[in-house]
């Protein structure tokens, strides 16, 4: 055997490593049934419990239809967020065992590590959210094919955003416990104050402000607009163009921040 590597131009590889890291995320997920059950089952159970339990207890201000119906897009957002969280914990696990070290000593661009992880986790998140769409009739919802297609597009945007956020946080964490702490401190409030469970129009003023600056609010609004086939989400009074703009901007920002973090650590280590 002789080193053919010597003949290859010495640049870091991007797309093939991105693809293989992405594929590995999906393969290992499908082989861990517990993760599938956790990511789809938990939001489904909570949605049915709260949506069903509060079915007739609340009539939300400015919201038509049942509570189960109202929280359906919110449950989709929850699935996307939970999957992102579970997937990004593996960033820390991979680093603790030798898997990530094996990637870091290969001639792989740091961007491939970010993109592979984020794309893989986003594919998983969207896949599970699509499965969840099958439960829409339980809430009396019967979306048209076009609405479902547009909703899947919205899910992709939202998934990339939350997975990018997850990577950005996880890459800098030393332990999974630290990640859980951030999850409870930041990610869960982001979901709670996204308009997934109650409309912004009926919230106290300070909560309303927090909801307005929460990027998840626009993601949930985008899901409501696309799923309901309406131009404006009545619960948040956010137009779909604003919802799409903020969601795309958030996703792009999170991916860029993840790329910068993954590369900056390289430079810090080089000092």
């Amino acid at each position: 055997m002789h080193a053919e590597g010597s003949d290859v131009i010495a640049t870091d590889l991007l797309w093939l490593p991105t693809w293989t890291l992405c594929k590995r995320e999906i393969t290992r997920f499908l082989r861990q049934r517990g993760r599938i059950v956790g990511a789809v089952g938990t939001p489904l159970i909570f949605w049915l419990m709260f949506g069903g339990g509060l079915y007739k207890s609340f009539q939300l201000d400015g919201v038509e239809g049942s509570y189960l119906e109202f929280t359906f897009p919110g449950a989709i957002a929850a699935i996307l967020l939970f999957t992102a969280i579970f997937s990004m914990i593996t960033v820390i696990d991979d680093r603790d065992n030798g898997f990530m070290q094996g990637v870091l000593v290969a001639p792989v661009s740091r961007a491939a590590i970010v993109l592979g992880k984020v794309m893989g986790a986003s594919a998983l998140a969207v896949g599970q959210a699509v499965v969840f769409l099958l439960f829409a009739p339980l809430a009396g919802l019967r979306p048209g094919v076009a609405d479902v297609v547009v909703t899947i597009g919205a899910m992709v945007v939202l998934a990339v955003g939350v997975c990018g956020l997850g990577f950005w946080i996880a890459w800098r964490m030393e332990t999974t416990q630290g990640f859980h702490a951030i999850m409870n401190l930041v990610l869960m409030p982001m979901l709670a104050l996204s308009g997934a469970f109650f409309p912004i129009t009926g919230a106290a003023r300070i909560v309303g402000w927090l909801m307005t600056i929460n990027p998840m609010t626009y993601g949930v609004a985008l899901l409501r607009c696309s799923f309901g086939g309406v131009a404006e989400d009545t619960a948040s009074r956010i137009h779909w163009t604003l919802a799409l703009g903020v969601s795309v901007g958030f996703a792009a920002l999170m991916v860029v921040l993840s790329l910068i973090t993954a590369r900056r650590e390289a430079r810090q280590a080089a000092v």
Partner: protein
Amino acid sequence: MSNIVAVNGLSFRYGDRLALDDISLSVTRGSMFALLGPNGSGKTTFFRILATLLTPQDGTATIDGFDVVKDCAAVRRRIGIVFQSPSLDIHLSVAENLRHSGHLYGLRGGDLQQRIDAALAAVTLADRRGERVKALSGGMRRRAEIARVLLHRPQLLILDEPSTGLDPAARAELWRHLGRVQAESDATILVTTHLMDEAERCDRVAIFDRGKLVITGTPDELKSRIGGDCVTIRGGDLKQLAADIDAANFGPARALDKALRIETTSATKLAADLMQRFGERISELTIGRPTLDDVFIHETGHVFETSSESTSSKQKGRR
């Protein structure tokens, strides 16, 4: 023969602690080279610098003429790294792991498949290719790790404590495979180890202690520096016995873990004298050729500690 690794004045600090102090050494192409040292000696830090995972504060290291800091992409194509902690995904099969790894090096298609077949054959795991890694024994996993790093045909294989966690049979098997890999390729193999018998198997050994390179040479060269044999004594109250032996001008007697050792050019006479003088306090006396353990004690003046956990190896660094 040219050198594949050339290290000059290499130093590394974790904060204020000097983990590597002005290391200079070279590794000949095609050889099997051991970095021998106790935990905390700096060998793992040295390994991580060669693996392009840490950047030294001072000095240079080149692999095949490429600087490990400035030309790390070129270096990464030329090295294959086996870490102490397993780098295979246990949820994937052996072949899936290898395919994944090949992709990381830009390999694909039929070429990759052929390389996977060859690498698995080299470590006799061809019949396990479809099995999930979690179903393999520790020894097989380590061999699969070696197959993984052979795919891109590295010029330099670097293994960090490769037999950690393996039973003696699996260790012997691993070294048999390493020998075979080296014989069938032009690859240079560099191993960090704290095990003397593993270092003895290598062409050359560099002994590390407390961040310094103590000495480099072939195992025979190093042992010949002792210039004689070693008498090892076991018995009760070794501390007092050592003091008495020194006082009687038979020493110096160096204290090992549960024994005393004396270097001498006339072992038979010394043994007879010791038995005559201290016979009732000695439970066992053996005469042996020097080992690398003796070399370590001879060169550093203290015992080779293997029990304490390395702090340097716990340090994390990413690039």
